[in-house]
């Protein structure tokens, strides 16, 4: 009983950090509902108290001249397509690495897995200029297809890493039983193993989508108009019309909201996936 009444000092740093984390997010959301006067007429903190919320920004980006629909639809098409492609290839490879004994010359499973993951260490700027020249020749610059191709390669290492971790966590008994029953390896993969890792598959899917959704460097170099994504729209707001803070904030809210949802949904899976099943809790 005494424990409950005692003041918990640990809440002080926790609350301080929580405020530090939450305040910028709060600021973006309220700024998306400010108009010219409430932004440039001094600092306003609370809606309805020291400024009147305005829907001006939302009118402009949802219906007006500065529409969000193009980049939003590009982001969705590119994000979903490349996520699904990377997930398809990545679960196959993850399964192969987790369940088979592979050899390529002196290289074994862990060498191959390491090679695949190490692609992730490569700074994107190393390949982006090569893609720029290649896509220029192939006519893939500023196309949805080009971006889907680039982002599939970009996401693949991490999906392989995650999926092999998830496959290693499930027991092999069911797959062996199916094998004894005469099922083909592809059948075992699709009907036995894959359903068992569904939660991991969903987590990997959400995380991969978030990488593609947020990516900026490839998008800014390889797109100009027909395949621009939301981050490009956010970045391009500056300069053109001065800086219309409320617009950028409204677009940022559209970009951020699904990611906050994913962060909430993923929770613990995020970590177990990242560590490739290496942490057993």
């Amino acid at each position, binding site marked *: 009983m005494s424990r409950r009444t005692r003041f918990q000092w640990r809440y002080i740093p*926790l609350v301080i950090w929580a405020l530090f984390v939450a305040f910028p997010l709060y600021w973006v959301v309220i700024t998306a509902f400010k108009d010219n006067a409430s932004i440039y007429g001094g600092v306003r903190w609370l809606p309805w108290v020291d400024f009147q919320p305005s829907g001006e920004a939302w009118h402009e980006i949802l219906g007006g001249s500065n529409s969000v629909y193009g980049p939003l639809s590009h982001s969705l098409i590119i994000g979903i397509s490349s996520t699904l492609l990377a997930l398809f290839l990545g679960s196959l490879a993850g399964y192969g690495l*987790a369940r088979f004994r592979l050899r390529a010359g002196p290289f074994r499973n862990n060498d191959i897995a390491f090679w695949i993951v190490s*692609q992730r260490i490569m*700074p994107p700027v190393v390949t982006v200029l090569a893609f720029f020249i290649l896509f220029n020749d192939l006519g893939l610059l500023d196309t949805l297809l080009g971006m889907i191709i680039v982002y599939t390669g970009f996401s693949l290492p991490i999906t392989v890493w995650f999926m092999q971790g998830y496959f290693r966590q499930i027991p092999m008994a069911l797959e062996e039983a199916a094998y004894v029953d005469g099922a083909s390896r592809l059948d075992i993969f699709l009907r036995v193993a894959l359903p068992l890792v569904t939660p991991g598959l969903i987590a990997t899917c959400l995380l991969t989508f978030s990488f593609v959704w947020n990516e900026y460097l490839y998008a800014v170099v390889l797109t100009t108009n027909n395949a621009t994504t939301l981050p490009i729209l956010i970045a391009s707001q500056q300069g053109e019309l001065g800086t219309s803070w409320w617009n950028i*904030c409204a677009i940022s809210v559209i970009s*951020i909201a699904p990611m906050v949802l994913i962060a909430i949904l993923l929770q613990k899976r995020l970590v177990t996936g990242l560590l490739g099943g290496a942490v057993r809790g």
Partner: protein
Amino acid sequence: MVESPDPNRDTVGAGGAVPTRRKRGRPLSSGFAGWVFVLPTVLVLLALTIFPLIFSLALSFSNVSQDNGLTFTDRTLDNWRQLLHNGDYWQSLIYTTEFVVLAVIIEFLIGFGLALLLWRRIRFGGFFRVLFSIPMMLAPVAIGFMWRMLYDQTNGPIDAILSGLHLGSVPWLAESRSAFLAVLIMDVWEWTPFMFLLLLAGLQSLSEEAIEAAQIDGATGVRVIWDIIFPMLAPITVMAVFLRFTESFTIFGQIIQLTGGGPGTATTSTTLYAYFQGYQDFNVSSGATIALSLLVFVTVIALMYLAITRRLLLRFEE
């Protein structure tokens, strides 16, 4: 326990599952069928990362630029030679390194502290954990813009708070030292969650017994953390720092939105510099050279880091 990426080990999964599986003659271990699963990914990666890498290398030994119509010219060492004498380039590399080292250390310390606070079940623990993990999921350009707004000297809240506390006004983005700090604070905001989540997972996988035994022996909080928890967390720490370290070097979207690399070139990270050279000025070859040098630099540091930490880990295990 954590498996660090170790190319010399030949076991699948925990506890060397492959050899035992083989002894028992398990049916799924034949190699050829495995390649059917893995080969598509290997081919895609060869096409989408290894080929562009080689292409990039070719660019760096050529002179592809807007002036030359973006076509290849004679082979040349000029790009690499010029890089050695390019003060802006070295400055960007020094800036990036300073930034990365400081950011990773601060993020680790805060992340570890927060993980310790939320390790044991407490009320609202779940709420804090979710909230703390949000920033790392957001778009870098959105984060960069968000902080630019916050740092704004006339209409931003940070200065309003500082002057409200009579601490004066800070020209955040206008002076190089404060701009360095501004980028650092933004990065700490964005990436402390990563350290926090990994270390929390590490803490939760520790055996309670060793810690309780130490506490019964009369060890104080700090000693328990330093002597018991820290060595047990060493593998996951090594991995978390490795991942953050290599990825921090590629910082781009946040900085380009927050400072645009300025004032002057004070916060121009190497990726930013390669982008300015290769894309904005269309000196593609020069940009590719800078990018490749960054890859070499990061790889060398990563290998050194892995070599050093492997020794440290062995010492911890003794």
